[in-house]
């Protein structure tokens, strides 16, 4: 892969191929090919630059030191993790969902200069939080939302194995150490929450993230519509 900042050093035919990929929206990065190659293991991603407004996808650039690499062409939102060693980003094209709003979550690792899909869901991804449990396991707490009811949905992702837990129509009410507490709301209450009103969950349930990480990987399939 040829990053934008490297184009000026390449031949005209190579430049043409690179421009074809860039302007035709073809992403040559998704199969694990190098995107920010040549970085030392001590370097960190300091900043992201996304051309998306969160609804319409756009290119995502990562800033490493003085240089900027083009990570993907069709990104919606992105988050820096692990002190700049990794980036997760959402893209359209999940597992279908209401009006095909489902999205995928990709994990990019700077040290190996590779990326992979770690979640493909029915919903839009609105937030990602990386946590390390007391047992030393890494987990991603992924907040999602649907565009019909407006409910929140919570997934737990094992960065190595993918999505291992999902709870629909629930939101995080607290996290203390490894204990994640979700709140559940009645359907009509999601509209009140959407308007910014305060609503107490009718039920809460606590989960140990270490236990959730032992779950089987979840593969969502688009349902017939």
């Amino acid at each position: 892969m040829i990053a934008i900042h490297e184009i000026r050093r390449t031949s005209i035919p190579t430049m043409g191929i690179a421009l074809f990929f860039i302007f035709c929206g073809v992403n040559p990065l998704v199969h694990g090919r190098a995107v920010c190659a040549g970085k030392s293991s001590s370097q960190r991603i300091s900043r992201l630059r996304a051309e998306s407004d969160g609804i319409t996808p756009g290119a995502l650039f990562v800033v490493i030191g003085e240089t900027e690499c083009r990570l993907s062409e069709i990104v919606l939102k992105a988050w820096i993790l692990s002190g700049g060693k990794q980036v997760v980003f959402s893209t359209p094209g999940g597992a279908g969902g209401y009006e095909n709003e489902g999205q995928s979550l990709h994990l990019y690792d700077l040290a190996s200069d590779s990326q992979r899909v770690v979640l493909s869901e029915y919903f839009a991804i609105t937030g990602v939080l990386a946590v390390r449990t007391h047992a030393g396991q890494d987990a991603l707490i992924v907040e999602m939302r649907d565009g019909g009811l407006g409910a929140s949905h919570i997934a737990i992702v094992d960065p190595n194995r993918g999505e291992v837990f999902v709870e629909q129509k629930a939101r995080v009410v607290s996290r203390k150490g490894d204990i994640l507490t979700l709140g559940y709301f009645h359907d009509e209450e999601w509209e009140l929450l959407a308007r910014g009103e305060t609503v107490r969950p009718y039920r809460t349930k606590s989960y140990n993230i270490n236990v959730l990480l032992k779950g089987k990987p979840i593969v969502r399939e688009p349902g017939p519509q």
Partner: protein
Amino acid sequence: MAKWKGIIGQSFSPGDFHSYVSTVTFDTWRPQFVVLHNTAVPKLSDWHSVPGETRMRNLENYYRDVQRWSAGPHLFVADDLIWVFTPLNVSGVHSPSWNSISWGVEMVGDYQVETFSPAVKRNAVSALATLHAAVGVDPLTLKLHKEDPRTTHNCPGKNVVKADMIAQLTEALALLHPGDHIPGGMI
């Protein structure tokens, strides 16, 4: 799980839809406006690969059992027929901020990538005119799903132009209810 509100699952020509709506009473729930959507999936080019009745059953399973919602949108407007899904006199589920106060009308297609089908547009305008007339709603209150600040995606796609839809809806409403006034006439 939320109690499922049921579906009508019947299809109508635009004229028959007008007659059908005239039989519906709005004594328990009355919407304030219509929110316009497109299905994205299925695309219009895929819609007829499955019989309409099967589509309705699939959609019912999808909204009830996969999404675990209490209802779905109210109408699915295709290029041939208007399908009533959620009963028009109960609130549906289709747009986060407006479910309790609006009808949800899905136009079949993905109008971010498909050309806005003239037949779908014609049937949608007719259905909207019938709905607006039924409860006396101003066409200017029409909203697109993507105008809901809590939605997550670009719906309907860019090929649906709100001003154009409102203009055609206003025209259709005038034809539906021309009134007694004869322009320029005298009694």
